[in-house]
């Protein structure tokens, strides 16, 4: 491979992706067969199986990693793959067949929208991760790559993200082991696709095919969803597990049997393995279970406690490995959060304050009017809820259909369990989002149940009389889908051209990740025993030398030093041979120096203790000299 961790063409990752889907589906069907789950819409059953299968594969990879077997991972993956393929061949999906009806024009259009959107996202995902896949290059892909180099999953004291629950990152790890980042990113696309399938499977049996397709299409129409489907983040994985949990809960609520409640618990275990904030949805669904079990007399025969245990125990057991590992390594199961109460290694009160300040900086404040206006603000001013204000249409955007249609669905369908449950799960999630951190992508999991409400609202206006109302609604919804598609095409052109071979991967990366040339130079020229500290930069995925982050933990701090001597002492203490400093960091240091303030980095440069050995676009690679 010319570019680290990157397949030279899309054929291998696509082929392995199909094998991976089949394996996950089969593993999930084995789980559902073991639980003797019956009933449910076929699409929902397929979605549940896929989610359960990815969960099993993720936990398997975690176990192999913790036992130090990552060098054998490509071979060890044969076991779950074969098991999964057996499951696909031997077990049918179950749930009965839906009656076949002739497809309407609306359904054809919606299927076409979903298909084209999925294809664009697939071609985008297969291109190398660019600079805007910030978190992927920093830890979602980078930490698994480091662990593969180590041969095991071990403690990275300088990267607090690596101590988060990392269920979906285990799939990225498996993908990097057998193929590369293209396959890894396809697993995030899969999570988005399974979310759409879940929404379809939730809505179709209750409101028909068109409503089901609308729910999936509204979710997929959000530019933030389409963007996430092409990068290696984990928000779509969280949306998938929470949507599946909701679908399973509804199946239980409507009489498909207690085993669906256990499936809900399993899905919540997956969600808690992606992010600790899934606890909000877990508590909401547990409370809903308690209320339902107490309200309906027939349920009292088996006991309210039994039903709570069905949902809680699988969730806790499946989530436990992540929080136990983090507790054993850091002293804090939710590290680095709740630092004031729970503490944690290589963290500090100052870092905790800075982290919280950054989270509080997103959004438009926490007053009551802003809470009430949040859905409007998110739709009209999405750039206020993200990092990239210059591209509001692309990265930070929901599109109009949630705001336009969900209130109608909520008002019209409030008596329906689907609507109430969806509104409760979405509402509590958004309330927590409002309080904790108002970044748009953190609201993404709530978009799934809101898409259900929007679909019901759409069905209503599309069927309303007179014909002028129907036509106007059709034009507006169609316009929103067309614009969504256009935004997706426009923002993905470079990636699609790269995947199709019209542009080389190197040429694409040079434009999409301006820092890449410096990483490539380092890979080609630094001695193998080098150890690099990234300063003002975290996107180290493409660097093929051991590296650490500076200033993101107390393990290595270079910005808060007592002069050049102190800086060098800290670097030597950690065995750092080189610094890779971002242009932003260097410009900030230069401004301090020009203002007459002391800057340890520039002082060290002046004394010859640091030497610039390569520069690229304002970023610099410096050699640490002397002992």
């Amino acid at each position, binding site marked *: 491979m010319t570019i680290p961790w990157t397949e030279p063409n899309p054929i291998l990752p696509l082929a392995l992706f199909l094998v991976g889907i089949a394996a996950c589906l089969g593993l999930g069907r084995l789980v559902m067969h073991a639980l003797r789950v019956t009933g449910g819409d076929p699409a929902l059953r397929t979605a549940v199986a896929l989610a359960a299968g990815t969960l099993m594969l993720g936990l398997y990879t975690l176990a192999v990693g913790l036992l130090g077997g990552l060098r054998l991972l490509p071979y060890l993956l044969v076991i779950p793959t074969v098991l999964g393929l057996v499951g696909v061949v031997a077990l049918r999906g179950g749930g009965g067949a839906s009656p076949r009806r002739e497809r309407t024009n609306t359904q054809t259009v919606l299927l076409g929208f979903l298909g084209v959107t999925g294809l664009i996202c697939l071609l985008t995902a297969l291109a190398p991760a660019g600079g805007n896949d910030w978190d992927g290059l920093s830890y979602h892909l980078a930490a698994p790559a480091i662990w593969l180099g180590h041969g095991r999953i071990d403690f990275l004291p300088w990267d607090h993200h690596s101590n988060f629950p990392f269920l979906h990152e285990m799939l990225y790890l498996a993908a990097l082991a057998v193929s590369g980042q293209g396959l890894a990113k396809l697993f995030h696309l899969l999570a988005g696709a399974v979310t759409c399938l879940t929404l379809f499977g939730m809505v179709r049996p209750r409101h028909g095919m068109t409503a089901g397709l609308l729910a999936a299409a509204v979710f997929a129409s959000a530019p933030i969803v389409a963007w996430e489907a092409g990068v290696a983040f984990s928000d779509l994985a969280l949306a998938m597990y929470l949507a599946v949990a909701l679908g399973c809960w509804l199946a239980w609520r409507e009489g498909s049997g207690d085993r669906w409640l256990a499936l809900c618990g399993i899905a919540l275990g997956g969600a808690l393995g992606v992010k600790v904030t899934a606890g909000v949805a877990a508590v909401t669904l547990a409370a809903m279970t308690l209320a339902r079990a107490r309200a309906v007399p027939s349920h009292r025969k088996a006991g309210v406690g039994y039903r709570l245990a069905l949902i809680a125990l699988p969730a806790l057991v499946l989530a436990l490995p992540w929080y136990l590992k983090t507790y054993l390594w850091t002293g804090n199961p939710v590290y680095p959060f709740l630092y004031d109460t729970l503490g944690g290694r290589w963290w500090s009160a100052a870092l905790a304050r800075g982290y919280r300040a950054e989270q509080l900086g997103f959004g438009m404040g926490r007053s009551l009017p802003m809470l009430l206006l949040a859905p409007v603000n998110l739709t009209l*001013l999405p*750039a*206020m809820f993200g990092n990239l204000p210059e591209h509001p249409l692309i990265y930070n955007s929901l599109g109009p259909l949630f705001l336009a*249609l969900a209130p109608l669905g909520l008002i019209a369908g409030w008596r329906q369990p689907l609507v109430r449950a969806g509104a409760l799960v979405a509402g509590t999630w958004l309330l927590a989002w409002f309080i904790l951190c108002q970044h748009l992508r953190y609201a993404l999991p709530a978009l799934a149940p809101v898409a259900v409400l929007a679909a019901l609202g759409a069905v209503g*206006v599309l069927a309303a009389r007179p014909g002028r109302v129907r036509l106007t609604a059709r034009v507006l919804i169609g316009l929103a889908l067309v614009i969504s598609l256009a935004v997706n095409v426009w923002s993905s052109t470079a990636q699609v051209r790269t995947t199709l071979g019209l542009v080389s991967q190197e040429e694409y990366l040079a434009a999409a990740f301006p820092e890449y040339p410096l990483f490539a130079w380092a890979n080609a020229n630094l001695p193998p025993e080098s150890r690099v500290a990234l300063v003002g930069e975290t996107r180290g995925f493409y660097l093929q030398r051991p590296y650490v982050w500076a200033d993101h933990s107390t393990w290595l701090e270079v910005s808060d030093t007592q002069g050049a001597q102190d800086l060098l002492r800290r670097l030597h203490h950690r065995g750092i041979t080189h610094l890779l400093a971002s242009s932003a960091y260097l410009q900030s240091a230069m401004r301090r120096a020009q203002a007459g303030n002391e800057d340890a980095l520039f002082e060290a440069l002046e004394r010859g203790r640091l030497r610039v050995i390569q520069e690229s676009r304002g970023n610099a690679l410096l050699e640490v000299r002397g002992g």
Partner: protein
Amino acid sequence: MTPERRPSRIARLAALGWVVLAVAACYVAQVVYFLGAYSGLGGRR
């Protein structure tokens, strides 16, 4: 809007009006932001 209870004409028109308003406002607001009219509010880094 379930078949069992047909909403009134006013309700139907209000629903459509809301859809028109929401869709239009969404795109107008983002185009205006993109053209810099909201730069005074301050974006993120």
